[in-house]
């Protein structure tokens, strides 16, 4: 009897079929599917609004648009001097850095505080500063009118009753210091290393330093 049972367990070929094969299948499947499948991914964090909210470059525009008080309290006392260079008294916060254009009354109307200076005695409204800028920067203003200079929002396809939002000169440039300044920058990407190359693995990595060194001339 015992001889017979032994025979059933270890008959030729039977051992493979009944013990090793299912065992191997189980092991293979376990190794295939039970591995550490969850990568270590941090929880998503919402984006900060200042990284993506549309805004013009000149955040301080409000500072200069409204001066408190009545202009004529001061300006009626003083005889306007066409050669005045440095903004004085109440205008001390204004830093004039407009190249060779360094006279207040080149742009501001000498008698009328609510308007800008046009040709001769004419006046230009504060609502249309581009007319004043065009007196010197005609080519840029022409580009701006064609839409190739400056920030434009709204749409490329102008539908009936719609018009693109076209920002005027002083909404981006400070007229007293027109060189473009912005100062809000968004952080560097934090892609996982495996999806995209990183430039700076560490600051003292020689390869990285070689590739990103600004002083090297490499062609």
């Amino acid at each position, binding site marked *: 009897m015992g001889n017979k049972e032994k025979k059933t367990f270890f008959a030729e070929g039977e051992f493979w079929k009944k013990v090793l094969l299912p065992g191997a299948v189980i092991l293979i499947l376990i190794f295939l599917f039970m591995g550490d499948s969850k990568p270590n991914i941090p929880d*998503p964090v919402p984006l900060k609004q200042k990284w993506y*909210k549309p805004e013009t470059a000149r955040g301080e525009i409000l500072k200069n648009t409204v001066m408190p008080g009545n202009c004529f309290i001061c300006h009626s006392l003083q005889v306007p001097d066409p050669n005045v260079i440095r903004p004085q008294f109440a205008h001390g916060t204004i830093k004039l850095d407009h190249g060779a254009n360094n006279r207040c009354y080149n742009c501001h109307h000498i008698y009328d505080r609510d308007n800008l200076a046009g040709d001769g005695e004419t006046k230009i409204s504060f609502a249309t500063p581009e007319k004043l800028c065009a007196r010197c920067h005609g080519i840029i203003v022409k580009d701006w009118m064609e839409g190739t200079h400056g920030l434009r929002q709204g749409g490329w396809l102008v539908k009936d009753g719609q018009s693109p939002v076209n920002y005027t000169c002083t909404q981006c440039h400070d007229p007293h210091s027109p060189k*473009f300044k912005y100062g809000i920058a968004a952080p560097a990407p934090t892609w996982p290393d495996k999806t995209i190359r990183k430039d*700076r693995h560490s600051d003292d990595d020689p390869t990285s330093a070689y*590739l990103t060194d600004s002083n090297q001339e490499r062609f």
Partner: protein
Amino acid sequence: MSAEEQKNLKTNDSDQQESGISRRYFLAGTACLSAAAAVSLSPLLNAEEVPSGDDFIQKHYKELTTEDKKEIFARLEAQIKEKYDVDATISDPPPIDGVEFAYVLNLGRCIGCRKCVYACMDENNQSRSPQKQYIRVLKMKKGTINLESASHDYPEKEAESDDFFYMPVACQQCREPKCIEVCPVKATWQEKDGIVVVDYNWCIGCRYCEAACPYHARRFNFAKPQIPAQDINPDMGYLSNRPRYMGVMEKCTFCLHKTRRGEYPACMEVCPTGSRKFGNLRDPKSEVRIIIEQERVFVLKQEVGTLPKFYYTFAK
């Protein structure tokens, strides 16, 4: 052998030489196998993404009728509602006749502030973790365009520097896109207005297109894209910014859900310097056309012959 003998053989447990496999071993083997299958398939119970039956049998985008699309969009909206609790609307604006989109970027004005990158993430429902971004801003030393020494992960304090210029690179929407040639399942193709799109439900995730793109413009979802529910942009396009799945390819689509309605893409509207210009290449009065006619423009990696519709210039 008589019928009775045969019956005896079958019922006799000990005699197995002729019946092959006994009931006991058959049951034991079956139990083993089913246990193994259950154990090995158990991770599927908490799998990150399992497509529904309708997802599974959905046809290729180009074979869908209008009714099919309506059904599919309703199903996807329900899925988004369930997942994020957001009432999204999925639209599919068709290409406009006589329109070919082009982009011009004035490198003389770009300050590398990366606002376009994050506006794109916000508009296109890109994964926040792991982070996906379509636009890479390359920082290069002035005087040469050396992509090899360019840095795209410079810290934010290095933006707006006078010694460098900044070159944002995203999908160039080539006229001869190499990425669509290599796709084995035709899950990516060029639309009539020149935009190269991906059907996220048809993509098999082989990443051939990512390898074929000379600009590294395509992004692959290795992990399940994660977006906080309050960051979801509910205005979605089927071919553009609806939430993606794990294991599919995605890319910039010029915000086609916006631009095909006549709006500007998100990256353009947010640029504080106005260095980005977008428009219809076939309209002689459009901004891009005027710049291309008046300024010296160039395309990135001209020598590879992809004929991009994304132009760079160093205009004032």
